[in-house]
Each structure stands twice: as C-alpha cells, then as structure tokens.
C-alpha cells in the first residue's frame, strides 16, 4: 500500500452489529470504500469485534469493487485487518470469484448452455 493517510472503516461501527451477514450491510461498506477510492485514498477495513461473516456481505462490500477498479489499484489502496480466519477464507473466495466474474461476463450464460448440452 502506498504511504498516505489511511482511512479506517470500522465495520462494527458502520453496521452496528457483530454479525456481517446481509448484502445490505455490505452495501454500506462498499459505498464508503468507493467514495474514498474516488479521492484516491488508502483504506483499512477493520473487522475488529465482527464475529461472523457471510459471503453475501463480502460480495457486496468488497466483491463489486472489481467491477470499477483494477486489481492492482485495489491491492495498493485496500488493507484488511482483524478478520477472523473463517472470514479470511470467505474473503479469498469472494475476491477470486469477483476477478473472474467481471473479466468474463459471458461465463454464466455459457455455464447454462453447458448444462443444457450435457
């Protein structure tokens, strides 16, 4: 991450809950990251005091960043802290999926055709 002031996004404070479960909660985090990215800020998403996390939350909070921002930009500007191991496993999957999803938007249509052809 480049050396600049780091904006800390405290997930527990933003969603007001120790469980990050719903897509709607994730959208609040996404909006904050998006706003800061547009100003070229560095961000630390802190999951301190978050005990349980779903992929639905992470898809919205982080996954959709890959629609508008390059991998390199995200890597240089975004840091994650205090995430549980289970949350980290989910986040890794979400990131891998998002990279593929936005690189190849026709993949899902093709997967339907593949199943019909079986």
């Amino acid at each position, binding site marked *: 991450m480049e050396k600049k002031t780091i904006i800390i996004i405290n997930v527990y404070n933003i969603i007001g*809950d120790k*469980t990050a*479960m*719903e*897509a709607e909660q994730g959208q609040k985090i996404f909006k904050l990251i998006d706003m800061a990215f547009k100003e070229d800020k560095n961000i630390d998403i802190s999951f301190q005091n978050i*005990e*349980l*996390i*779903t*992929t*639905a939350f992470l*898809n*919205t909070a982080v*996954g*959709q960043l*890959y*629609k508008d921002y390059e*991998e390199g930009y*995200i*890597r240089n500007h*975004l*840091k*994650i*802290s205090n*995430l549980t*191991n*289970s949350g*980290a*496993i*989910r*986040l*890794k*999957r*979400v*990131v891998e*999926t*998002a990279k*593929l*999803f*936005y690189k190849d938007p026709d993949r*899902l*249509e093709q*997967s*339907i055709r593949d*199943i*019909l052809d*079986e």
Partner: protein
Amino acid sequence: MRLFNISNDFNSYQQLIHFYNDNKNKMFADIELDLKQFFCANLSAALGAILDKLIINSNNICFTNIDKAIETILKKNDFLSFYGYNSEKDIYGTTVKYKKILPRDAKYFRNYIEKEFIESNLSNLPNMSMGVKHSIIEAIYEIFVNAQIHSQTEYIYSCGQLFHTKNEIFFTLVDTGITIKDCVNNRFNSSLTSLQAIKWALEDKNTTKRNITGGIGLAFLKEFIKNNKGLLQIVSNDGYYSFDEKGEQYKLFSGKFPGTIVTIKFRTDDKCHYSLKSEKDINLENIF
C-alpha cells in the same frame, strides 16, 4: 390425510408434497391431518410453510390424531402453538424452536439463532466447541441470506432438532417464494429442469445476481457439510438433491413443492477445522 413416519428422506418429502398438492385448491374447507409414528421435528418448518399456503385460502387446519410423542416434541419446539395448542418447556434442550420470520427481519433471525445455538441448553453439549458452533451458524446464515436475496418469499420458516445420542443436529429453512428452477430460468431465459437448476446453483461461482458477484454460499455450505460428515438436502419445485458421505443424489418428485426446503445435518462431535488445507492461515497482505 395422514403423514406417516416423516423423516429427513426423499419419501417423507414426497408425502409432504402429496399433502400440499391434494389440498392446494381447497377453499373454506376443514383440512384434517394425522401425524403418526414419527415426525422429525426440524421438518416442522416444511409443514408450517405448507399449512400457511393452505390457510391463506381460508381453510381450517385440524390435527385430528397426533401420536403422543410427536405432540410433545411439537409442543416443545412451539410448532403447535401456531395451531391452538399450548407450548411445553423443553427441559432437555433438544429443540431449536420453530419460527416464521420476515425475510427483511435478519436481525431477529440472528438473535434467534444465537439464542438457540449459543445461549440455550444446546450450548451445554460438551463436545461442541465454539469454533464448530460459529461454523454452523455461519452456514445457517448463508442459507437464510440466499432465501432473502433470491426467493421473494413472504416468510422464511425455520426449525431444528438435536439428537443427543447421535451427536447430530438437523436444521431446516424453508421459503415459499421463487424456486431455484424459476430463479435460474428467469435470469437466463433458459429452460433448465429443477435438477439441472439445482446442479447449476451448487456449482462454485454460479449466481443469478446481476452486476454483482455471488454463488459462493451454497458451494461453501457443501464443503462445510463434507468436512463435517453431515448432510445437505435441497427440495425445490419438483427437484430433490441430497449430499452426504455416501455421495450425491438427484431425484424428481411427483408433484411440486411451492418453494425451497434446505435441510442440513451437522455432527456436533466433529473437532475438525473447517477449512481446506490450502486455505489455512491466509495472508491478509496478499488477499487482493
């Protein structure tokens, strides 16, 4: 109509589907129901969803003959409270209460699950670590959120049952909204069968959401079930899917269920760490 020996298997779901289809067109009728021999209490969620579909047609539901043991457990899990019975105290802590929850009321659902799995008698299970409990709860949340996002259901029904001696918990979540088949076909303008649609939905990274990633929750759940040596069943429309140690099964029902049922069985004595070896100790510095 009689529901006989209802357990977590294909034939029992088929009985429930027959019961629904035999009564779905009735209006202003007395619909009689016997529950005999055995009724696996987590399936209160499926029965409650079906009965609600019949009640909105102004039918009366009459439990005419319930075996005593079944009546007791369905009073303990509060299911029969919805049909004019009093509830009974669950002294041994074997039930996860029957609830019908508005999809937007996720906070209520979270409080209910945490109360049932962490604060209640279920938490007295000596073999169940907090790590296992958290993994189970996260798996349940993934299913709830799936129903919340995709089904457009009026209510989400849930119920669970603990079998102490077998170290097993069964948990069922039901919606009466858009089935998996219709959800996939509406999104892609395709003509997949129920079984093809379920198979597609279970594939990692497949999602019907537009412009946003998804499709990880169900695949993740399946991996967790595999590691835990548990069971995953999905009933949606006329499709049945089952996954356990013995493998996967896809079957078609005669008749359709008006929504989706997901039943999961967890082993409570499993001390495994629920992640793949390659995924342990992920370095957060390199995650993007």
